């Protein structure tokens, strides 16, 4: 039984943590939160790219470091802890993974080295309206090599150089009509308008497409299948980000409860708060263990991945939502001020629990995959 990260991976974690403590403090997070003109911290992005984080799990032949998915999980947890305001998840967990899994050799050569080096940023555009994306609400159409439609919200769309767009490639709109296409955001016909989000350190936008040139990624009509697979992979990585953020929420709640006195003692000495923090701890430990299992499934290409990913995703989303909520509660009045940092986690936790599908959706994925496997 070796259900833990290796010593080398733990060393990477320590280095990443130290680096981010130094280069991505709360001031740096707030500089993005409070500046409408900035979508991400460009300095931080170029530094982590130089360190090779963006190329962690991209093969060497395509300009990456060729390390494994476990190393990427380690980095994800640290980015989550630091609330890093970068497009890492869109570009690396999603865009790069789509290319790695479904790109032709030519496409991999064309895109991955630039993504690995961090010099270009990629993202994915799926949703078009409120509610769960599904065939009857995806209207974007691909015909004669051109894309027409409108996508929103698209995470990191304003920062992106390349966007993978989900569009119907025939006149139907069903589970076999969706295909994926790569576009260059600088091409004619691409119109981007920014959207406010609940966490401005993780921005989104609307992408309007009018006769935009595109190249297909993967097989025609297999869009939903590819999306399921890449979202499963991304879910594991997101779960590590979420566990990281949840852990810091608990740590900060605890720290404050030991500093703040009321009724003649530290508020952390009251059972009502002790038990609340114990509950935070329990949810985070369960989420961490589920995330580890996801990491194992991801790194070994196990056919357990759909179940492991959904378990990790649900567990981590619930843990982070709870921890960030109760962190505010433990802080009392100052917890809902702009000045204190609680809201940074409150924003991030909710945003992360929505950006590749809600908890509700992932619970449904979990049970339907368990039904399919019928393995319990």
């Amino acid at each position, binding site marked *: 039984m*070796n*259900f833990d990260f290796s010593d080398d991976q733990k060393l990477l974690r320590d280095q990443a943590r130290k680096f981010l403590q130094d280069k991505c403090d709360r001031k740096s997070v707030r500089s993005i939160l409070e500046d409408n003109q900035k979508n991400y911290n460009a300095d931080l992005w170029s530094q982590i790219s130089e360190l090779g984080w963006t190329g962690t799990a991209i093969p060497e032949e395509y300009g990456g470091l060729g390390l494994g998915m476990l190393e990427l999980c380690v980095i994800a947890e640290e980015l989550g802890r630091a609330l890093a305001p970068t497009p890492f998840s869109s570009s690396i967990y999603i865009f790069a993974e789509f290319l790695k899994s479904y790109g032709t050799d030519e496409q991999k050569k064309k895109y991955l080295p630039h993504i690995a080096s961090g010099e270009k940023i990629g993202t994915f555009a799926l949703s078009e309206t409120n509610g769960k994306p599904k065939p009857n609400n995806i209207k974007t159409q691909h015909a004669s090599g051109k894309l027409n439609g409108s996508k929103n919200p698209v995470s990191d769309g304003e920062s992106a150089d390349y966007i993978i767009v989900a569009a119907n490639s025939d006149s139907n709109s069903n589970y076999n009509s969706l295909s994926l296409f790569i576009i260059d955001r600088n091409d004619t016909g691409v119109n981007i308008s920014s959207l406010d989000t609940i966490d401005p350190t993780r921005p989104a936008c609307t992408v309007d497409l009018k006769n935009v040139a595109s190249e297909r990624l993967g097989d025609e009509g297999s869009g939903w299948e590819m999306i399921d697979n890449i979202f499963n992979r991304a879910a594991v990585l997101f779960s590590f980000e979420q566990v990281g953020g949840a852990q810091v929420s608990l740590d900060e709640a605890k720290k404050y409860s030991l500093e703040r006195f009321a009724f003649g*003692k530290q508020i952390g000495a009251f059972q009502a708060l002790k038990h609340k923090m*114990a509950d935070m701890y*329990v949810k985070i*430990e369960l989420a961490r*263990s589920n995330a580890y*299992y996801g990491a*194992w499934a991801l790194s070994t290409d196990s056919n357990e991945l759909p179940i492991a990913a959904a378990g990790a995703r*649900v567990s981590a989303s619930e843990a982070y939502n709870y921890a960030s909520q109760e962190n505010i509660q433990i802080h009392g009045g100052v917890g809902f001020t702009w000045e204190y940092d609680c809201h940074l986690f409150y924003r991030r936790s909710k945003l992360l629990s929505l950006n590749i599908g809600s908890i509700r959706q992932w619970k449904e994925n979990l049970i339907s995959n368990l039904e399919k496997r019928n393995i319990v």
Partner: protein
Amino acid sequence: MDFNDTPQEAEFRKKVRSFLEANAEKRSTLAAKPKGDSGSSISSAGAPETVKGEDAAKVALDNAKEWQRKKADAGFAAILWPKEFGGYGGTPIEQVIYAQEEHDYFVHSGYFEIGIGMLGPTMMAWGKDEDKKRFLPKMITGEEIWCQLFSEPSAGSDLAGIRMKAEKDGDEWVLNGQKVWTSGAHFADYGMIVARSDPTALKHKGLTYFYVDMKTPGIEAKPIKQISGSANFNEVFFNDVRIPDSQRIGAEGDGWKVSLTTLMNERLAVGDPPGLDFDQIFEASKEIEVEDGLAVKNSEVRQKMADWYIQSRGLQYTKYRSMTALSKGQTPGPELSISKLVTASKMQDVSSYALDLMDMSGMVHQDQNPILKNLFQNGYFFSAAMRIAGGTDEVLRNIIAERVLGLPQDERSDKKLPFNELPSGKN
């Protein structure tokens, strides 16, 4: 990351498997555990029920003793014990491997867990050599069964508040008082008991630890019928029970320290969660109809089941993390402390929700109820006990808050006063 045994672990597992295959009956994975055994995860439960007839109980006990004998002969009865006391001299990871494998077989080890898991190690740490020689080998073989006489009517979560009197009379001690929640007291041969030898000392200082022969005149065990209808526990009355001073374990006044040895081992004795979990309600949901068809197709049911799944598997994977630490020869982190807290409430939620799904027939609690043999009805009652036994939810949350998170201890008014001056609501 992998789930593979090390070569030595694989070798050990092979040995265990071939022993079990040759000597025990495998249970089907989805079969409910027998009523009364559903608490084998808590070391203080797992004893047979007594209300349904003493004959059946005696047969069960005899079978268990026979099994224990085989286990002892094969060397697997006390894996963590040193060889000199008849143990296997094994490692914690080997103990876990054995428990994992035995879990798949239809055997009863509950009768001996308290002795081998908790009381034996206490005797090894604090007892006299002649006692170790006399008692430990028979504890392993199951020839003599031991019980733990700790809790009292006025001392549950606050164990150090016990009132059982131990008064010295020459070379003897006289015990007077009542113990409660004692598993197996009615069939145990011996017990270990902590009693108050000096009520004028501070609460934790006035205690002394002994062992007693359960057949000593003046000891009377009475089963306690629980809400489940089973009787896994007893109350045990002590009336002028005279025992020689040679049965003292540890020094006079050191009873709390000795008790802590017992209790520390209790935490290691906690085994696999009982068999009422996500898997069972998932199976049941495929058989039960709700308003819009099969329960398994109902969106609310699916959402709920997903929550139980992540709790259940989260605990399982947490155990893997602990096993990894053990396998590397490290002490597992505090993550294990969450197990019972999560398991007990989950079991209560699952069983209560399953009864809701059954609608009117959920009311029926008798053996011919076709749906999973009363599993959820039993769980509904048993889980209420499980949230209390072996540390209440509230005590466990306090332990996590204080020992894991390092939050301040509760303010206590009982640390500075002599025991007999503490408020008790009675004096």
